[in-house]
């Protein structure tokens, strides 16, 4: 009793505050870590608010009769008999209490979760800053290499092969100098298409070659490209917003790109990157690629 009186005196100053201020203090005081002293403070706050509300009803407190009726209607029902709304030490076994309270978030868990969230946000923000630094157009390009508008291999892959017509000979000998003797070339070109032009460029800087050959039939074209690449300088393939599809031939993943009215299938084998582009439909390009293996 003496303690309770002392506490009352300690928080007497609260009576001079109005209900709004008391509510604000109450919001600040509600803390999951609160110790006994905080709990006395919260009790005192609640007590003063209750007193003030009884003196002058502002409608903040619920109507007791109404709430009692609500309880009778919703909770004190036949199926609820023998059960209780809250776990108590008197009515529940220690196991039940343990099981029920294990789901309650404790402060250390909350702090861990908050720390993880802050760490995740920091990682995301750092990733965002890395995007322009690494000359990617967005974060996805950090991992994959195509966007809605463009496609490019990030790093090089596997390869092999045989045979070659005249237009491929310069390219073959250029690659042979680099120790590459096996390449894949189209064995089938659709009827009516004739060789239009071809080009071999060897970088004076890196010594790497890039080769392109074009076959034409009226306004239709087929371009086959083959290039060495160290993976540092990527060749970008233009593409529209159509989703990149992939399919496997010979265990090699081929990427199908659409660029407005034209199509490209790109793939790579070891340090060689291949691309077949055309105004023809994808099905025709697949036939040409099938002939290469």
């Amino acid at each position, binding site marked *: 009793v003496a303690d309770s009186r002392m506490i009352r005196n300690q928080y007497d100053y609260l009576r001079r505050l109005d209900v709004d201020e008391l509510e604000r203090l109450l919001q600040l005081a509600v803390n999951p870590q609160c110790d006994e002293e905080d709990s006395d403070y919260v009790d005192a706050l609640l007590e003063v608010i209750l007193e003030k509300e009884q003196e002058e009803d502002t409608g903040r407190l619920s109507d007791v009769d109404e709430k009692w009726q609500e309880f009778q209607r919703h909770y004190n029902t036949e199926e609820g008999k023998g059960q209780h709304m809250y776990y108590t030490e008197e009515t529940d076994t220690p196991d039940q209490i343990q099981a029920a309270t294990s789901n309650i978030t404790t402060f250390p868990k909350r702090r861990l979760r908050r720390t993880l969230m802050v760490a995740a946000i920091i990682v995301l923000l750092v990733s965002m800053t890395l995007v322009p630094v690494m000359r990617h*157009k967005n974060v996805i390009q950090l991992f994959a290499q195509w966007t809605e508008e463009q496609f490019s291999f990030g790093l090089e892959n596997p390869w092999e092969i045989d045979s070659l017509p005249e237009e491929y000979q310069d390219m073959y000998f250029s690659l042979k100098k680099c120790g590459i003797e096996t390449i894949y070339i189209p064995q089938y070109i659709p009827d009516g298409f004739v060789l239009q032009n071809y080009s071999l460029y060897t970088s004076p800087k890196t010594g790497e070659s890039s080769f392109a050959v074009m076959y034409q039939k009226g306004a239709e074209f087929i371009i086959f490209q083959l290039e060495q690449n160290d993976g540092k300088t990527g060749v970008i393939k233009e593409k529209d917003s159509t989703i990149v599809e992939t399919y496997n031939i010979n265990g090699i993943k081929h990427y199908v790109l659409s660029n407005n009215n034209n199509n490209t299938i790109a793939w790579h084998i070891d340090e060689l990157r291949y691309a077949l582009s055309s105004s023809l439909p994808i099905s025709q390009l697949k036939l040409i690629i099938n002939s290469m293996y």
Partner: protein
Amino acid sequence: LKLKRSCAYLFTVICLIALLIPVTSAAESASDQIMSWGIDVTFGDGTIDVEFGITGNGTMNKLGCESIYVYKKNGTEWDDYTYRTEYNTGMSVYNHFTYANMIEIPCNDSAEYKVVVTVFAEDDEARDSRTDVFYL
């Protein structure tokens, strides 16, 4: 507490969405003229070496490198240093479907440079181009 948590979730979602938005606001689109392209700029022996390649969607009226603008660092500013256009030797070709070349631009190795390179392809319908910026 609920409000704080909601704000944290909202902030996280905004961050995730922001990651998916391209950093370069002016995203390039597919092209009727350009099929593929690539540019690389490095220091050579007393030169800035600009290597480019471009392939058109079929034979183009003209294609190659439209321009190379080189800026030299002066304090915090970039001063005009030199430039090349598509009319300079080795920059572009007519009536071809592909073109690649390396252009050497004399420079002073000890300086810092910004190089803006644009490649292009042009047919009867239109000209399309792509630009990349390099810092050396």
